[in-house]
């Protein structure tokens, strides 16, 4: 599945959810289901600091694709992280670098991207693209 196909799938999932409460319950559920980063990678080096919540991110390069794992101390951030990982993980560096993550806006969660200081999500996406860019230049 391409990055955009996964995004469209997520947008479709959210279209069945009625009010904000259902949307957030779904995000919280996704947060709980996020495959956690291996504890050994939960280091200061892999920590992305938002003003309020923290995200740990690890990238692995395998068979020409980048695989991400992550964790966050806040469950809503973790749910958002889970979605971003679902969209970007397992793709070639060039695809990740060029991707446009429109789904966060489309599913009505724009505030989590615009409040750049609060949850580290924007920094996380930037970091994922930087990993991909670094790997792209090596391949």
């Amino acid at each position, binding site marked *: 599945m391409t990055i955009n196909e996964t995004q469209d799938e997520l947008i479709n999932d959210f279209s069945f959810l009625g009010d904000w409460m259902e949307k*957030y319950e779904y995000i919280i559920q996704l947060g709980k289901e996020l495959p956690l980063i291996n504890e050994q990678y939960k280091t200061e080096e892999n920590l992305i600091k938002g003003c309020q919540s923290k995200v740990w991110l690890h990238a692995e390069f395998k068979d020409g694709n980048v695989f991400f794992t992550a964790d966050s101390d806040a*469950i809503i*951030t973790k749910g958002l992280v889970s979605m971003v990982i679902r969209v970007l993980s397992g793709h070639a560096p060039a695809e990740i670098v060029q991707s446009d993550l429109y789904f966060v806006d489309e599913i009505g969660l724009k505030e989590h991207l615009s409040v750049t200081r609060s949850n580290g999500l924007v920094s996380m996406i930037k970091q994922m693209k930087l990993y991909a860019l670094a790997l792209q230049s090596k391949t």
Partner: protein
Amino acid sequence: MLAQDTILKSTFDVAKIRQDFPILSTKVFGKPLIYFDNAASSQKPWKVIKAIEDYYTSLNSNVHRGVHYLSQKATDAFEESRKKIAAFINAAHDHEVIFTRGTTESINLVASSFGKAFIQQGDEIIISAMEHHSNIVPWQMLCEEKGASLKVAPINEKGELLMAEFKALLNDKVKLVAITYCSNSLGTVNPAKEIISCAHNRNIPVLLDAAQAIQHLPIDVQELDVDFMAFSGHKMYGPTGIGVLYGKEKWLDKMPPYQGGGEMIKTVTFEKTIYNDLPFKFEAGTPNIEASICLGAAVDYINEIGLQNIHEYEQQLLQYATEQLLNIEGLKIVGMANNKASLVSFTIDKLHPYDVGVILDKQGIAVRTGHHCTQPLMDFYCIPGTARASFAFYNTTEEIDALVVGVKKAIEMLS
């Protein structure tokens, strides 16, 4: 327990007061706005909003230098506002009121100017463990520059300053005490008069960060005998981008200017500049004229309500909120000082404050979450942050009830 009807019987007509604040009728996500982020910034009454409009429709002009009609009118209004603020805090002289951009700039002004004149290598500056970053970082920068040391007066688990420990830090090397009057994270109101008196016994001047006190408590700088006091306009129902540094004349006279430029000079030649008198020595460049004037309108508004009335009503809100929130299982209030301003900072077992804040927001309830720019304090409590509900006199017990419902919903969703 404080019954809701006791508060409603108060002489304070909250319903009428709320009509003075147009933003309070806003809807957020289809729900009536409940604004509990007053410690970050308060809402503005019509009186201030109207003053801003009046300024641009009848006064707008630069101050102090113009000979023309509008400039004279703007200058009069600007200086009238300074007088109102001086009277509000009972300064001995109007020229002890310096307009700045806010509390942060006021503290930086003292760190820079007082620091230049009076801090030397080996000196010490005392702050407390509950300081906001704005009352930590400028002193760290100064200490680094001068080779001085920063000493931190500790607090207890309740969030109260340990006075014995504070007193023990006072010695001949200490050249300044800079302490918050009221903690923005805990609500603790520090014993300012005692702190000042102890410091003065050793001839040490004191700066009070009154950003979280000026809107809650009547403050008399002469009675306190405080040497410097900093506060912001936007937390006291006035405009943003304006603040005040109060300083005793005897200190301000001895301090060099903070910034160079227009207004702060008497004469300039390429060889030498003669600095202007107070307060202009510290007000280089065109000031925020609009906000300076409209801060005077905010002071008028507060005076109409009466700070003592505000204080009493807010204390009732604080007591009510404390009782109601403590009934929630797993909720812990961070900061249980005996003397507190009207804010409640809390954590909930196993929940991150960010998550709680997001769920409350969706219910129309605005609280602040995070470390509140007091990271060392959060480290002291070993927490990433808190959710903070800070009340103003336009808040109600019904809103506090809605907060309790909102918190319970957050717990239900996030657990």
